[in-house]
């Protein structure tokens, strides 16, 4: 049941963030097309064996970000919004870059140095894939 999401206590991030991320990823890759009904909060909580509050928080956040829509008394569905898939991918990329940039800032790296490092990693991955 609900095997499209898996959460891990070994992952140091809060569980609700893991749920959010995985729902978004399923939407981004097209596994959950717009209009797809999502399980109710209590169903998903029981299926994942996480607390109701975890799923509730994830759904509220997904709704706030416009990824899902909740209709009174009818449960939640994947939002029917043009460009949803690409906007999720875009925001995921921005989040990762932001993380890398703040770590760089914390370690006292300059903007040019960070740019250079990203280019290096990019080239390395291209090389490895060949």
């Amino acid at each position, binding site marked *: 049941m609900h095997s499209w999401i898996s959460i891990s206590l070994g992952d*140091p991030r*809060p*569980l609700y963030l893991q749920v959010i991320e995985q729902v978004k990823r399923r939407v981004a890759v097209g596994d959950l097309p717009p209009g797809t009904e999502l399980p109710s909060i209590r*169903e998903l*909580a029981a299926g994942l064996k996480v607390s109701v*509050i*975890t799923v509730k928080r994830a759904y509220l956040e997904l709704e706030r970000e416009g990824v899902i829509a909740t209709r009174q008394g009818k449960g939640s569905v994947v939002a029917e919004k043009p460009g949803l898939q690409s906007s999720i991918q875009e925001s995921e990329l921005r989040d990762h870059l932001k993380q890398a940039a703040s770590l760089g800032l*914390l370690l006292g790296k300059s903007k040019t140095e960070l740019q250079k490092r990203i280019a290096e990693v990019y080239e390395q991955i291209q090389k490895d894939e060949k």
Partner: protein
Amino acid sequence: MTTELGNSTTTELAVSMVGVSKSYKHFQLQNIDFTVERGTVAGLIGPNGAGKSTTMRILMGLVQPGAGSVSVLDKAISSNDAAAKQDIGYFSDDMRLYKPETLSWHMQLVRSLYRDWDDVYAGQLLDRFGLIPQQAIKGLSHGQRVKAMLLLILARRPKLLILDEPTNGLDPVAKHEVITELMRVVEDESRTILYSSHNTQDVEQISDSITFIDRGRVIASSNRDDFLEKWKCIKLHAPESWTLPSVDGVRLESSHRNLHVLSFNQFRGELPVQLQTPGVVIESVESMTLEEIFVSSVIRGRQEG
């Protein structure tokens, strides 16, 4: 307990304790304020001897508190008669089944005493717990006995489950079976579970609220993800002249030469930057596990108290 997520205007409480105290010769339960909202799972975590069982016995009316007020399923505990207990399922390791008799014999007995006993559900539980009704209790392993007791409690569909260390001593598979079953219970939003353990890992995943108790006092109460977001551990290198910054909720966990490990229980995103005084190099900002947070809370609480 307040949450910013609750969109219902009234939160009904399944359990409420206000200013509850109880004194024994060598142990005191001190001024316990504790509530559990209906339809939620509440985890009570504490080291052995912290007061978890005493708290639960007070809720069951098995121990009379010295002070304070207790209400369970909207009834004051003093009037908590047999009728009220129809709606409560209590599990404790002290409880004994009758050894020479079979599980099936016990099921018939409980069935005759409780009006809401559900035969179909009992059958499903037998199946999912892998229990054989014809087997005598004396032949059961510890895990099977725990599951048999839980079956007898669950199948009468109580509105409130008060489970004192139900997963203690269970192997990982039995633990998984029990937790799966408990989550099925709260699919019905009118049912509530209060669950104690000395092990954070047993309760953290399924609990809507987690309360830490130690030495008879409540030391912290929140939900898992809020605990994880508020508590962080920062490692930093600092010059000799460095002193612990005066930031709310900071504690020096350990020092090795000029490497210091600090824990924070009121973490904010801008904190690492604030700590970067001249000469200070931050090595890492790390999340803590709930177990680490629990241990640090207990130690902080003991040092303050």
